[in-house]
């Protein structure tokens, strides 16, 4: 998440918008963005509607046993087609901004 913030200008140059999605409420995300100085878009999916639509649900993995999103990245082009995905098998390993930028440059 931090890496994306640091690469925000590169994303802008390519005309590609990074959007973070989790089950956190808008105010929880606002808190996070303020504390971590994130300025890109954070969306709240508390009922996991979008998380399920993309089929990246991690059932019962929240602290109190609720469903959350597994880490995943999807690049969507302007026609609404998925053009690149990254699905990690390890929570500590996320897509690097360079990978996303490379995929975005190929759009």
């Amino acid at each position: 998440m931090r890496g994306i913030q640091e690469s925000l200008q590169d994303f802008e140059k390519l005309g590609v918008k990074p959007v973070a999605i989790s089950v956190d409420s808008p105010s929880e995300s606002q808190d996070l963005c303020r504390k971590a100085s994130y300025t890109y878009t954070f969306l709240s999916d508390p009922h996991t509607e979008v998380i399920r639509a993309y089929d990246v649900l991690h059932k019962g993995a929240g602290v109190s046993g609720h469903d959350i999103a597994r880490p995943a990245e999807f690049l969507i082009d302007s026609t609404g087609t998925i053009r690149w995905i990254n699905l990690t098998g390890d929570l500590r390993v996320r897509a690097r901004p360079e990978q996303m930028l490379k995929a975005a440059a190929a759009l």
Partner: protein
Amino acid sequence: MKRRRNILIWTGFAVVLIAFLSYVPFFAQFPITRDIPWANYLLFLIGGTLLFIGVRRAFRDPAQYRGKISGSILSVLSAAIIALFVAGVIYLSKLIPSADTALAVGTKAPAFALLDTAGKQVTSGDLLKNHRGVVLIFYRGYW
């Protein structure tokens, strides 16, 4: 001369034990210490260092400090505890569901409408307008 109790050995072991036991009830509750348990690693380092100094002085200066046997046993125990913790972290971080059914490249991205941090509704259509693309980054969240 009476040999002194080697307090560093016991303190070091106590810190290692606290580092091990504190993750689930305490450090896992905070986003900053949850995904990478650096606070626990730091405590392990502190505990290990104390133990090391304690054991070293027990062997170097056995006339003054006790703890050759207890120190050795607690060192082995500590090493086992640290190894168990690290193995647990690695195991848990790989414990995520398979994404075989996640939407694949080439499929149409489902449209959505969600609230942003200001509580304003944002649709996928809005996001794609005036942009060549959008990267959706799903993350676990900080609950």
